């Protein structure tokens, strides 16, 4: 799981904290009240925090407070991550604690995991990892950059990479590193010829090395965000070159010897485009999933076209819809569409096109929806890791202006002429409705929030309410005045 912090300071739209693991919708990780603390921004733009009763526990006097991943967190009076700041440590009562002097200069994106934050030493400007319970460096701040992915940290020093667990235990060293959502690939380069000649695949969950492929002639990378692939090239004594591509999580091998067999041409997440060649020179291309299952027949023409994408903060494409064309034999093309995440062919509702149908991605699971002016359809549904791509009509002749989000395959926020709503799609009941000047948003997992906004000559005032969301019902937790946003850890 790749975690990234982003800071939400928005007036009207409360952006959901996204969780990237499939289990997030049912797990108990409380991203909102992380460490029992909800960090908020007031109408003056200052950060403070309340507890689960809505009582102010950290005064609204900070320019920034990072969410608590341990007993302490980072805060600043006069800076933020984007512009740089001199940071210090505070406890859950807002008291400044003693610890090493640290800073952020925007050198790298801030990254964290439970218990640890990658942070810059104030004096040297170099990065290490801070144990947020002990307020001590678990990894010395001697690196040009340190990025925490899951529970694994990549520490760079020049062109040398070292991969650590966040407690400072060395996992391995590498010449080159690629990270995806769940795994990290650590390459060694051939010194003389400068191509990759080894790769270790490291689980971002626990730092274990799940595969170690060394001393090969060639290792290529295939950058599917969810399914990292690597190609190994070996030559036998007779000089026959075999290229084998494997994907993390799959036992299938796409293999070709001297060009005969299956060669992977490109990958979008779980959708693998494979060229199959016979010894007679004939070849054809078709999409497969990473397990070697052919999705649709061969015979498409041209390159697949990307018609829709979702990217994360690192500009990695985490989902896309691809259009592939077959000649209709009379000069035209018949197009079919593929969802790269589920590696499923998707159909659009009857009469809908990509111009009339807006796609919406539930990034807490693998669901994909399409909504039109008055209807909502489910296109891809995920259940326990198994995808189905059946068009299901969810709402028909429904009166909405816009759909903002769908979370956990169930909770939809939308805008109608009457205001902003949170609907439980399972029951089609509105759980929460606020006026058009405010917002209602599902904040995953387990909470919803609303904010009514009033403008005055002297500025703005808000009424901000936090609800607990349990099994399709809301209960109000507390209401606060003059709160304008959240400081949340977003997890992608």
């Amino acid at each position: 799981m790749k975690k990234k912090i982003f800071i939400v300071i928005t007036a009207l739209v409360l952006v959901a904290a996204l969780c990237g693991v499939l289990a997030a919708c049912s797990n108990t990780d409380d991203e909102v009240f992380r460490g029992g603390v909800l960090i908020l921004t007031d109408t003056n733009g200052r950060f403070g925090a309340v507890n689960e009763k809505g009582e102010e526990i950290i005064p609204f006097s900070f320019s920034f407070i990072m969410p608590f991943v341990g007993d302490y967190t980072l805060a600043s009076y006069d800076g933020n991550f984007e512009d740089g700041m001199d940071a210090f440590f505070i406890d859950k009562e807002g008291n400044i604690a003693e610890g090493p002097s640290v800073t952020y200069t925007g050198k790298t994106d801030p990254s964290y995991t439970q218990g640890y934050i990658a942070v810059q030493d104030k004096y040297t400007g170099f990065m290490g990892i801070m144990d947020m319970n002990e307020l001590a460096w678990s990894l010395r701040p001697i690196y040009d950059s340190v990025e925490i992915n899951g529970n694994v940290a990549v520490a760079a020093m020049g062109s040398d990479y070292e991969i650590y667990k966040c407690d400072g235990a060395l996992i391995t060293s590498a010449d080159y590193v690629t990270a995806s959502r769940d795994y990290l690939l650590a390459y060694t380069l051939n010194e003389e010829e400068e191509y990759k000649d080894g790769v270790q695949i490291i689980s971002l969950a626990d730092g274990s090395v799940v595969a170690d492929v060394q001393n090969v002639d060639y290792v290529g990378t295939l950058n599917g965000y969810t399914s990292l692939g690597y190609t190994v090239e070996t030559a036998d004594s007779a000089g026959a070159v075999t290229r084998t591509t494997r994907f993390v999580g799959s036992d299938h091998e796409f293999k070709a010897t001297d060009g005969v067999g299956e060669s992977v041409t490109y990958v979008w997440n779980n959708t693998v485009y494979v060229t199959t060649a016979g010894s007679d020179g004939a070849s054809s291309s078709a999409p497969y999933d990473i397990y070697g299952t052919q999705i649709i027949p061969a015979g498409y023409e041209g390159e697949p076209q990307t018609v829709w994408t979702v990217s994360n903060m690192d500009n990695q494409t985490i989902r896309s819809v691809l259009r592939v064309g077959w000649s209709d034999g009379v000069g035209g093309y018949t197009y079919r569409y593929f969802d790269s995440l589920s590696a499923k062919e998707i159909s659009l509702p009857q009469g809908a096109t990509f111009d009339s149908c807006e796609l919406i991605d539930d990034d807490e699971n693998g669901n994909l929806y399409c909504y039109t002016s008055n209807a909502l359809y489910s296109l891809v549904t995920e259940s326990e890791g198994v995808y189905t791509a059946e068009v299901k009509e969810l709402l028909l002749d429904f009166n909405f202006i816009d759909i903002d989000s769908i979370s956990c395959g169930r909770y939809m926020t939308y805008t109608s002429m009457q205001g902003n709503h949170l609907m439980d799609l399972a029951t089609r009941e509105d759980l929460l409705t606020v006026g058009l000047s405010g917002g209602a948003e599902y904040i995953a997992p387990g909470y919803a929030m609303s904010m009514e906004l009033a403008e005055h000559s002297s500025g703005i005032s808000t009424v901000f309410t936090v609800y607990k969301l349990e099994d399709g019902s809301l209960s109000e937790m507390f209401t606060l005045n003059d709160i304008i946003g959240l400081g949340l850890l977003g997890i992608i």
Partner: protein
Amino acid sequence: MKKKILLPAAVLLLLCIALTGVLTACNKGENTGVFASGVIPVQDEYGYWGYADSNGEIVIPCEYNYATAFNGEYAAAGRGSASYVIDSSGKQVAGPFGSVVLFGNDAIVSDLGADGYYIYTLSSGERSEIFDRYEYLPEPEAVRIETDASGGIVAEYRSVEGGAVQPADENASFFVQGSTQYIFEFGSMAVAGATNYAEPGECSVYNLETSTVANYAGVTDITPMPSADAAVCAAVTSSDAEGNTRVDFILPDGTFINGVYDVSLTDSVPGVTLARVAYNDAEKADGYFLFNDKAVLWQGEDISALNAPLLGSCYYTEEEGAFTFYTEYGAFTHTPEQIDGATVSFSSCTLAGEGAIAVSYAVIPAEGDISYRNVLLRLNEQGFAEVSDVSAFAEKKLSVVYVTEEWNLIVRNNLSGRYGVTDISGDTVVDIVYTGVRPLGGDFYAVKMGNAESVYKVGSGELMPFIFTAVCPEEAL
């Protein structure tokens, strides 16, 4: 002039240690080496200098614009236009001055707002007579003191020994007359005099090492070469009563070459100069002189015997498999190990610090790939002796960037770009994680990490946290 103005550095160091031995360190930390006085100059994040002990605890607050390392009991530190002499408790024991250059117990100072300088003896408070200018000459450790007088300059050289500026010596002083005045040094030589083409003048050439003087009359030209700013040698043209012109070519080690018709500097590498000398006697073949500031390294008539420095910082000659490298530090003769069937050829030579050079040889076998062998050669007290093969460093992706006095190597990891120290066999002495390493003498190194510096002691690691922008700057030592 006193004999032997040049004290070996080691002796001076011993003197300093002896002087500072009486001070007690103020805590449990280090009080050896660079911490002999208990504290070192440190710069805080706002750019101000103070002094900290080996734990990084500030002993003298960072409130100075500059601060020098303690040289014996005293250090110099200044803020604004005022400079002070301070002791290791931070007490200002003398000053404010307009400027201070501290030699130990003696300082050359100027008073605030006043012209002129004088020598100030800290122990007694005694002041010397005022002079107009001075220049400190690190080699030979001496100061040149100048006072303007009618018709010229009175200049004298005074050696600096044991932290004291030695008293005036009648042999050292000289008086310069004439409309064009020269005072300049090169190596152990100093030339002072005047020329006036209409009226030939006088000039004296001093050997500061041996205190011998050559006086010239009828001088029509004094040519510092290559320039007055950076003279490495000189030619003095004079004429006798009969009108015969004479050119003497003077090398920095005191070698005089007479009967010269013309001198040209043909080539150079840092610290080494090649000169071609044509003689008045047309029958006599031109001579070539290759010299550094201490000695003539090679001389001969056949320049083809001397190989030009295609790579690096050395000239070299080769004879029967033995290579002699001529460098700023002196001449090194080394016979690389021969390998059957392979030709060994010189590839490059670089100065590696503290009298050492790094030489690379290409080993060219009859068949197969060329390989390279890297060796370090160092001059010791007896002349060149030490050799170490560091070919294995390249396999560890390490480059040797500097050889310390202790025969340790400051190395750079070519992948991480970070610096550290190894011993001559390649074993790590200082972790190779720093963005810079500077030797502070003995077991101590200044280590830089990004924007901050600390002191590393071999065997103990970083003595203080990285909280200072700089520690023990080179210029403060």
